[in-house]
């Protein structure tokens, strides 16, 4: 182990503190992570684009500002992996799609700009399911990322690249987007903390839209506090996003430090368990609930009778919005252009480009959405799904009368194998069964590791859900669970992730 790999294993909070104290420079920290990426990403394949020069330049700027005595933010100098769905003026933005391969946006997303403004060092852009449609990164046009716990398994998706990067110590922090579970599910299967903030709590400006009414940017990190620090840096009202909430960011870092659940009412959602859930997932989940009780929480069971309709409603609403959002990829102004041989009409070029540029899952959803919005079908599909959405929001409202937070497994199974579900969209969709209701209602939700499933030794996620703008409650509960489990285990969970070591053994080279 070299000294640079030591640096990569620090928490983001410790990295920031060390930079602030002048113990290490941002350049050293960035170099350590770039080295780690160079060593390991051939196996993990988390990054689509590594911006070594840009990252080092940003790090140097931080070091200079610190040297000049400037007060720096809580994450200044800390590296980060950015999902390739946010626009970056100095890096390509592909959304994991051939149709945008090589596209360099002329502007930074609000989140990109906020990260830069806070002195966070963006290492590069991470892999994702094409246009964030998927739960494994296998729908990326540029190949799947791997789960650092077991390289034959998926890192989850769609924010699988960011999750894999953070779990592989290629970056201490990642940004993902969560439309149906795309932050929480990869966090769960990679053993990370992943947060879907309240819808409107984090800006969508410059986030290439999948489903506008559901898309929510959020943090991925190895600790609850790190996630909270990133949450605070990236969030807050954005006048460029009309759906952005004009409200103060909930005090999530303070909540993570408080890490106390005494007297908190915890509701276990009855409907999010049972058939289809792996036994190891349920075992660890039930233990986590018991743990919360031990820590002083008041646990009750709550019923959310309409959650069962969440998945079908989601697969009408999200594709409907996507069919419209993705219409702009037409070869006219940017991105791929196919068939423009001087004889084809604009309409033909559009058609040929979209046929060549979109992958199968994206096409499937565009067709689903186009159908659901069609004249004569709108009421039966899109309209009905919106009614379900209202009912699910009411279920949440009723449940939050009885409980301060709700809990469930984050995803029904641990990380599945690469290729296992690619030919079975329904099986793939089920990975988001527990996370979708939170997106439909727009409230806050988080996944925190709650141990390894006995049968496969892979991480299990505990999902915590809180009312709109009560994001801080998530962090209180998650930090309490994290502290108790780390103490019981004696070390952080990710110390047990040895997929890369095993790969290294197989390759006959040291990758860690």
């Amino acid at each position, binding site marked *: 182990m070299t000294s640079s790999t030591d640096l990569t294993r620090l928490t983001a909070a410790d990295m920031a503190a060390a930079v602030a104290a002048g113990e290490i420079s941002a350049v050293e920290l960035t170099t350590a992570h770039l080295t780690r990426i160079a060593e390991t990403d051939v196996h993990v394949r988390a990054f689509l684009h590594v911006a070594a020069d840009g990252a080092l330049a940003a790090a140097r700027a931080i070091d200079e500002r610190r040297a000049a005595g400037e007060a720096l933010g809580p994450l200044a100098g800390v590296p980060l992996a950015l999902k390739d769905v946010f626009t970056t003026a100095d890096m390509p933005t592909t959304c994991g799609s051939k149709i945008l391969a090589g596209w360099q*946006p002329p502007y930074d997303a609000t989140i990109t700009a906020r990260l830069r403004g806070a002195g966070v060092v963006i290492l590069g852009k991470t892999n994702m399911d094409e246009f964030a449609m998927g739960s494994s990164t296998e729908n990326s046009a540029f190949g799947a990322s791997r789960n650092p716990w077991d390289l034959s398994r998926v890192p989850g998706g769609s924010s699988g690249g960011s999750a894999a990067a953070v779990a592989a110590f290629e970056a201490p922090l990642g940004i993902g987007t969560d439309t149906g579970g795309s932050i929480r599910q990869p966090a769960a299967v990679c053993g990370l903390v992943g947060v879907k903030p309240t819808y409107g709590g984090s800006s969508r400006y410059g986030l290439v839209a999948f489903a506008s009414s559901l898309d929510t940017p959020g943090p991925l990190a190895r600790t609850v506090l790190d996630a909270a620090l990133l949450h605070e840096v990236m969030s807050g009202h954005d006048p460029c996003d009309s759906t952005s909430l004009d409200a103060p960011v909930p005090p999530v870092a303070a909540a993570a430090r408080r890490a106390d659940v005494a007297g908190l009412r915890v509701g276990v959602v009855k409907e999010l368990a049972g058939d289809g859930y792996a036994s190891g997932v349920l075992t660890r989940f039930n233990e986590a609930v018991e743990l919360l009780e031990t820590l002083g929480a008041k646990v009750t069971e709550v019923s959310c009778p309409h959650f069962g309709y969440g998945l079908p409603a989601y697969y009408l609403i999200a594709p409907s919005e996507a069919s419209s959002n993705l219409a702009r990829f037409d070869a006219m*102004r940017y991105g791929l252009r196919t068939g423009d041989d001087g004889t084809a009409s604009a309409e033909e070029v559009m058609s040929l480009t979209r046929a060549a540029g979109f992958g199968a899952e994206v096409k499937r959803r565009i067709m689903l959405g186009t159908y659901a*919005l069609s004249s004569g079908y709108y009421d039966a599909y899109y309209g009905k799904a919106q009614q379900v959405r209202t009912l699910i929001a009411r279920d949440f409202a009723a449940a939050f009368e009885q409980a301060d937070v709700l809990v469930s497994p984050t995803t029904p199974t641990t990380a599945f194998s690469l290729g296992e579900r690619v030919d079975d969209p329904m099986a793939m969709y089920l990975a988001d069964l527990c996370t979708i209701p939170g997106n439909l209602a727009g409230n806050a939700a988080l996944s925190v590791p709650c141990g390894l499933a006995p049968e496969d030794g892979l991480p299990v996620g505990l999902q915590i859900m809180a009312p709109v703008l009560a994001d801080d409650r998530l962090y209180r509960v998650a930090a309490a669970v994290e502290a108790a489990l780390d103490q019981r285990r004696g070390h952080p969970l990710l110390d047990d992730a040895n997929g890369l070591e095993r790969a290294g053994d197989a390759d006959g080279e040291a990758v860690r």
Partner: protein
Amino acid sequence: MTQAPERTVPFEEAVARYEPVIGLETHVELGTRSKMFCGCPTVFGAEPNTAVCPVCLGLPGSLPVTNKAAIEYTIRIGLALNCSIASWCRFARKNYFYPDMPKNYQISQYDEPLCTDGWLDVEVGVEIVRIGIERVHLEEDTGKSLHVGGATGRIHGADYSLVDYNRAGIPLVEVVTKPVPGTGSLAPVVARAYVTELRDLMRSLDVSDVRMEQGSLRCDVNTSIAQAGSAQWGKRTETKNVNSLRSVERAVRSEIERQAAILDAGGRVVQETRHFHENTGTTTAGRSKEEAQDYRYFPEPDLVPMEPAPEWVEEIGSALPELPSARRARLQAELGLPESDITALRNAGALDLVAETVAQGAPPEQARNWWLTELARRANEAGIALALLPITPAQVARICALVESGELSNRLARQVLDGVLAGEGSPDEVVAARGLAVVTDAGVLAAAVDEAIAAKPDVAAKVRDGKVQAAGGLVGDVMRATGGKADAAAVKQLILQRLGQAGQA
């Protein structure tokens, strides 16, 4: 594409047998400073693709933010059209692919328009026709395609197309009328009168420059006809690309003539979009209903609903300016000019100018004459709107006053006008600088008259013999001698006096 001209029935015959129903959809580009959903300026005629940003180019990741001024303007229009203003309504996406539409959907309104159910009174001759307003909604404009090569300037046959996105995202208000039945042979005139009235309304509300030639007011005209006395209306066609007031009238007329021929032959009118051609005054077929797009409208998820507060709407309503019809009635009463003059002034865009000139002290008749003849001619020669001539109503009023007082003849007044228009200063300054005042000095005038008589004794003799008409030649000589600055009537009087024919003038 050339199509054989369709058969038609002469208009008078057509309207004798068939009853037309018309409807109009009018798009008005709002004159807000910035675009509908971004901060780009709303300029006309700028270099292509210079007034654009990620939002109006629809770049991936960009999001719209509603321009509050555009909502205010739309409410102003709605209130002026006697509409109800929704207390809660949403934007919707209208989905269809077209190269000049950056997102391949247009942010518009669907089943929740901002303003509904109003009316506009339109004067047709001495009659007033009340046109029902179905809705007024807000949307964004598209870019503009320029098809290069090919004969028609249309996309078919073009070598390539260029798109200018400066117009993309300019706020657009669509005013949709209810169907207007019962106007009979007046249908084309009513359609034109409605668009004229709407244009004047928009102008007075100061929400748009409403220049049809620049496309800031665009009109789609729906026309159907049915057997006179029939309870059921006919199938309608929607004629697009109707871009002048005259074309509105011609389009309705031509559709009535065409549809009548179809029905006469026992055929059925196809519900379709038709294109109007300025050169022929006729329409040709576009998309039929069978090929019509399914726009897959759904509520725009990137925007929050519009919820105009009742107090705000009330405030906008109480700040509405005097509307054109009320203003016309008031001005007519104040000016005391006949209805036909008011119409002529309105058509020439001179009503406000004349009213202001009269307010500055000019007699209404004179003010009307100056603006409708001399000044209208000069504006026409310069190819600009009357209001853009470099002369103010106050200056015109001053010229009227100088004529009234006898200090200027009409001829001299026209020269003063030239001077003012040429930027030589106020009427008084021009009079002074050019020395244009009427020669009223009796001595100077008398000398000139004597000189003229002396120079032409034969003419003078004729006049003395009673041929009073012959004095005209002498008057001309005196006028020439005084550089045109004498009052011709006074000169004639003086000549006759001198030649013993006083009282013969």
